[in-house]
């Protein structure tokens, strides 16, 4: 047990938890004001539901011995987990519950990422059901494959420092599947649906960037040189992607926008996630520059193909996640067998396998779950509810109170 490692991991746990509210506002600023609270709620609710599920079964399914495909229930309820062995080659230098908490934060934010794609039309009741089922049946297994020493991809030597496959590709493909099931927003793309208040998006961006240091550098599970490297590469990729996104945007549309800068930074953070501790700052610079361009271009696809990925979750998280996971095969340091490190293409192959496996499994299971929930509880609100807005129809609230004059009277 090392107090310094513990201090850094606990601080990282807090940072990653803070990312979910950050994400809620990052998305919230981009929706129409009548749907702001619903967006915030879909994200905050994940902090509630997933946390409870994680304690009961989620962690155990992800990190219990089990098989190569999924963990078991031996850690259910986290009873006497203090001295549990999770199978890592070198034993953890932090308390078991610190590891449990850190992994929990990833389990919370991953499905939350999906809500950007389904903005303005997702039925709260359906989301609650999908969220719980998806966490148990999709997140935990995939996390087991990649993050648990017992997982088959882990054993194969596929690398994912902080969740390129488990978090971003996993959520991105689920988002794609979900919007195919629930369809477009009424009026899209003819009717314009511009962001209602970008300042929320910018404060969310600041929180995400801040929290991402816990996400990536915390994944070193200790306060060491690897953590410092992950810290620098994370910041460098975010910065580089902001610059490259703004550059292409300026070329294409004539303006470097605030939303573009924020989006580029997030794209870079997504792409560096699988690579953070395995590459050096210059490689992070390259990864960021590439991700910024690719994700910007990917944002245009939805208009071409007509799928309403409302806040570009697919363009940023699926595309960005794949970009990072594959580029890791190219840029990983010598020690980790990257192409430029002279490691040949074998790592590239493993990365491609991990990406493919995640896309297929998450895509298929997410689709089945979405269909089941849609047919039973329903995943999309009624047309009138969509028109009046999710805040009123789903939560009986307004994000911004009507005019100053007292237009209300208390009833019950």
């Amino acid at each position, binding site marked *: 047990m090392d107090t310094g490692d513990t201090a850094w991991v606990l601080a990282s746990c807090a940072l990653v938890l803070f990312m979910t509210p950050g994400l809620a506002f990052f998305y919230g600023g981009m929706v129409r004001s009548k749907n702001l609270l619903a967006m915030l709620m879909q994200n905050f609710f994940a902090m509630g539901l997933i946390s409870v599920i994680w304690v009961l079964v989620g962690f155990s399914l992800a990190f219990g011995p089990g098989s190569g495909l999924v963990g078991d229930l031996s850690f259910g309820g986290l009873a006497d987990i203090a001295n549990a062995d999770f199978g890592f080659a070198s034993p953890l230098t932090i308390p078991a519950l610190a590891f449990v908490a850190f992994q929990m934060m990833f389990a919370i934010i991953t499905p939350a990422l999906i809500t950007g794609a389904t903005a303005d039309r997702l039925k709260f009741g359906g989301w609650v059901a999908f969220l719980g089922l998806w966490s148990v049946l999709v997140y935990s297994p995939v996390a087991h494959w990649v993050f648990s020493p017992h997982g088959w991809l882990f054993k194969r030597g596929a690398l994912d420092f902080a969740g390129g496959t488990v978090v971003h590709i996993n959520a991105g493909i689920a988002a794609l599947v979900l919007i195919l099931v629930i369809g477009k927003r009424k009026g899209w793309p003819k009717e314009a649906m511009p962001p209602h208040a970008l300042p929320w998006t910018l404060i969310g961006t600041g929180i995400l960037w801040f929290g991402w240091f816990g996400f990536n550098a915390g994944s070193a599970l200790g306060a060491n040189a690897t953590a410092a490297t992950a810290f620098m590469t994370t910041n460098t990729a975010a910065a580089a992607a902001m610059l490259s996104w703004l550059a292409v945007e300026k070329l294409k549309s004539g303006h470097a926008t605030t939303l573009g800068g924020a989006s580029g930074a997030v794209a870079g953070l997504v792409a560096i996630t699988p690579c953070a501790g395995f590459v050096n700052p210059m490689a992070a610079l390259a990864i960021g520059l590439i991700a910024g361009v690719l994700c910007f271009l990917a944002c245009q696809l939805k208009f071409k193909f007509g799928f309403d990925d409302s806040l570009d979750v697919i363009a940023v998280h699926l595309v960005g996640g794949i970009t990072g996971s594959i580029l890791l095969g190219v840029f990983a340091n010598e020690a980790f067998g990257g192409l430029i490190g002279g490691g040949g293409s074998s790592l590239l192959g493993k990365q491609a396998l991990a990406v493919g496996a995640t896309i297929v499994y998450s895509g298929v299971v997410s689709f089945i779950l979405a269909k089941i929930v849609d047919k039973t509880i329903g995943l999309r609100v009624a047309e009138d509810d969509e*028109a*009046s807005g999710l805040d009123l129809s789903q939560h*009986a609230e307004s994000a911004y109170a*009507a*005019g100053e004059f007292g*237009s209300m*009277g*208390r*009833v*019950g």
Partner: protein
Amino acid sequence: MKLVTAIIKPFKVDDVKEALRALGVQGMTVSEVQGFGRQRGHTEVYRGAEYTVDFVPKVKVEVVTDDADAAGIVDAIVNAARTDKIGDGKVWLTTVENIVRIRTGEMGHDAL
């Protein structure tokens, strides 16, 4: 001259604008208002306490026009803003003695 004032549903503004453009109307002024009428408001809940909101968001459209065009403009608005649901709103007509274009000082018809 006439002033056509219409109270419509917010999401109908674009349709009304296009309908008026089609008629050759060159300008109009719109503003956000709150309406009270047959259309009921809604209820909100905060920490278990319920509140009723009687007012409904509406948009007011004002168009100053020549007497001759007034009737046509009213019809165009009515057709464009209609959803056949309660709360579609009203259109009313008042007389304008004169109008000036600030930029040029032109009056009456030329000011439109």
